[in-house]
């Protein structure tokens, strides 16, 4: 607590952990390349420098505010300093901006523009390195790395993976996986969070929009698209719509304009997942386990468990397919046998790991064809809408296609946010199917942005212990706690991304408060929907009675193969 002077303005500070947070609070956006409020402070880029009374520089991200402190944020000396850093960074950077995947969203480019860097006087002497395109989800271009270490820290601190790190030193320093291996040869779980935080084009999400355009323009193909819950509350941001706005109707319209034959809502299959997972859970309760039952919707978590906790595979982890794959099976059943037009099933997801999931052997038919051919990200869809020149913000809304034109229940909608799957499953387990119970569940502690939450709720006379985690580091901490016997849970929901899929790496990049707005929007949608119970929804009933017809095991559950890479 105290007062400081920022550009001669008297400013009160409270518990801000650095000057940067204070300046941001009063509306001054200091430039940063290596600072994320949610990660540890690194202090390497030196862009955030401020000038103190004596004319000395201090890094705002790593300096505590002090009472009586006087700083300036924008002096000629600072501007010169920032320009110089940018010039040096650009000198050691591939400068093919117009052909870079990150163009328009690159922070280096943005800052160079903001500070008016007009020339680069130094030649790039670095040896050119090949791209790493081995991963199904992300592409690494070492030539565009500015050594900010953001990816290194997110992978280590949030996912506990530490796939990427610095190697060598001085002018030879690079960021790379151990032994400069390709990403596909590491334990990388494809969560894409490193790409989400990368300020430049050094790590980007794999772009598969060209394939999609090919399918859309091939009259012999029938393109059926499903759209995940988290997509609708993030896509609008790319077109100047309010943060958190639910734009599902516009998405349907845009997809139709691009030539998609049928559009469905993954919420419908999330409802099916709820029913199956609740059934599985109740069966475990009846037969005595195994507990905890882990959720299975997040492919990054599945891959993590495969390498770090194989003991949970095909055992503690629910055998339910992800909603994406459940809908994949349903869509295949409905349209997969048309002799005239080959079905191309496509998903639009907040997720980069789904690109990997759709390629897994369990989700591929005997002839090698994938059940779901492509999984595009929210961002890829936004790019396609821009490619097509569609005025998204002013589009009319359009309805989903039959037989799933209602788009599922509120329980399926909240799958997109941390705690949502656990809440939906427990909601389904309880015999009490009244809105009063829904309300009670809402406040029991599964909602909220903390990376680890626990709750106990009484379901028909039995106390159910629930844990909800996001980030694989939090998941590992929880598993360790259980192994030490310090905690017991019946059901554990794991999502790899910050606050669940709304913070997926396929979404337009968002920290808080933007992410919270997405979460609120999903809960609001659930709240506004009259149908809150998955199994009571007519579409769920239709899907089970008319399409699945008792083949639940074969269509909706999965046994993971060993040694899947």
């Amino acid at each position, binding site marked *: 607590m105290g007062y400081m002077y920022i550009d001669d303005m008297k400013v009160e500070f409270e518990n801000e952990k650095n000057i940067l947070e204070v300046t941001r609070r009063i509306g001054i956006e200091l430039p940063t390349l290596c600072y994320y409020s949610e990660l540890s402070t690194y202090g390497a880029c030196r862009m955030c420098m401020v000038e103190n009374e004596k004319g000395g520089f201090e890094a705002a991200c790593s300096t505590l505010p002090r009472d009586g402190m006087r700083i300036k944020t924008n002096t000629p000396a600072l501007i010169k300093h920032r320009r110089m850093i940018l010039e040096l960074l650009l000198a050691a950077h591939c400068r093919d901006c117009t052909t870079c995947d990150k163009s328009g969203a690159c922070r280096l480019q943005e800052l160079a523009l903001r500070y008016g860097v007009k020339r680069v006087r130094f030649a790039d002497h670095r040896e050119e390195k090949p791209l790493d395109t081995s991963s199904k989800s992300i592409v690494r271009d070492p030539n565009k790395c500015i050594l900010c270490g953001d990816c290194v820290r997110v992978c*280590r601190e949030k996912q506990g993976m530490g796939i990427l790190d610095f*190697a060598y030193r001085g002018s030879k320093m690079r960021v790379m*996986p*151990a032994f400069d291996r390709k990403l596909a040869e590491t334990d990388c779980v494809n969560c894409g969070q490193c790409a989400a935080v990368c300020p430049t084009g050094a790590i980007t999400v794999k772009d598969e929009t060209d394939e999609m355009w090919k399918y859309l323009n091939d009259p012999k193909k029938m393109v059926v698209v499903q759209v995940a819950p988290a997509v609708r509350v993030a896509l609008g941001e790319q077109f100047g719509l309010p943060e958190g706005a639910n734009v599902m109707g516009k998405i349907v319209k845009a997809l139709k304009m691009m030539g998609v034959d049928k559009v469905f809502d993954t919420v419908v299959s999330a409802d099916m997942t709820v029913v199956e997972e609740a059934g599985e859970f109740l069966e475990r309760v009846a037969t005595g386990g195994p507990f905890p039952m882990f959720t299975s919707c997040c492919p990054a978590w599945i891959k993590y468990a495969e390498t770090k906790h194989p003991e949970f595979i095909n055992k503690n982890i629910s055998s339910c397919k992800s909603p994406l794959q459940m809908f994949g099976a349903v869509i295949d059943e409905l349209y997969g046998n048309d002799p005239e037009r080959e079905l191309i099933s496509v998903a639009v997801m907040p997720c980069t790991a789904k690109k990997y999931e759709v390629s897994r052997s369990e989700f591929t038919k005997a002839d090698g064809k994938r059940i779901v051919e492509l999984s595009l990200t929210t961002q890829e869809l936004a790019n396609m809408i821009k490619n097509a020149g569609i005025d998204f913000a002013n589009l009319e809304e359009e309805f989903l296609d039959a037989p799933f034109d209602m788009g599922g229940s509120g329980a399926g909608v909240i799958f997109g946010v941390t705690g949502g799957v656990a809440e939906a499953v427990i909601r389904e387990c309880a015999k009490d199917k009244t809105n009063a119970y829904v309300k009670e569940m809402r406040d029991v502690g599964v909602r909220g942005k903390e990376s680890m939450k626990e709750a106990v709720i009484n379901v028909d006379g039995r106390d159910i212990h629930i844990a909800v985690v996001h980030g694989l580091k939090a998941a590992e901490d929880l598993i360790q706690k259980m192994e030490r016997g310090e905690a017991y849970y019946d059901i554990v929901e794991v999502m790899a991304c910050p606050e669940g899929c709304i913070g997926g790496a396929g979404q337009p990049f968002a920290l808080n408060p933007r992410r919270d707005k997405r979460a609120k929007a999903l809960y609001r949608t659930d709240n506004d929907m009259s149908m809150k119970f998955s199994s009571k929804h007519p579409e769920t009933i239709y899907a089970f009675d008319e399409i699945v017809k008792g083949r639940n095991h074969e269509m909706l559950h999965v046994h993971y193969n060993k040694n899947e890479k």
Partner: protein
Amino acid sequence: MEFDLKKIDAIIDSCGCEAKNLITVLQGVQAELRYLPTEVMEYIAEKMDISVAKVFSVATFYENFSLNAKGQYVIKICDGTACHVRKSIPILTKVREILGLSEDKPTTDDMMFTVETVSCLGACGLAPVMTVNDKVFPSMTPEKAETLINDIKEGKEVC
């Protein structure tokens, strides 16, 4: 290649398994094997619960760690300022020539010799200096170096 993992275990046990001891462990392994093999670094990462990328990061940061197998005799020829002006480069050229080595190929195929340069051994008064393993040879000339290598080969000189 097979390594005696028990030896690695012993090194880790003696240094302590906490992440902060990584450098000491790597030094111990390097002293034992004369380099840090990939498999051993992976093993250390798993045992000490550090990511492989971090172990690789530390191992590549410090000049003293070698990721490649070295010969039984590591010859270091000093090319610090003092040695350089007193003609250390002709010694280096000669030694490489005798052993059929170059900058890109520092170790002989029979794993007998590795030739490296160092920037100052801190013995400038003895320039030009050369070391074989940890033994110091002062005031070298290309001819003396040749004799020394022959002596080592014939077992007359043990370092």
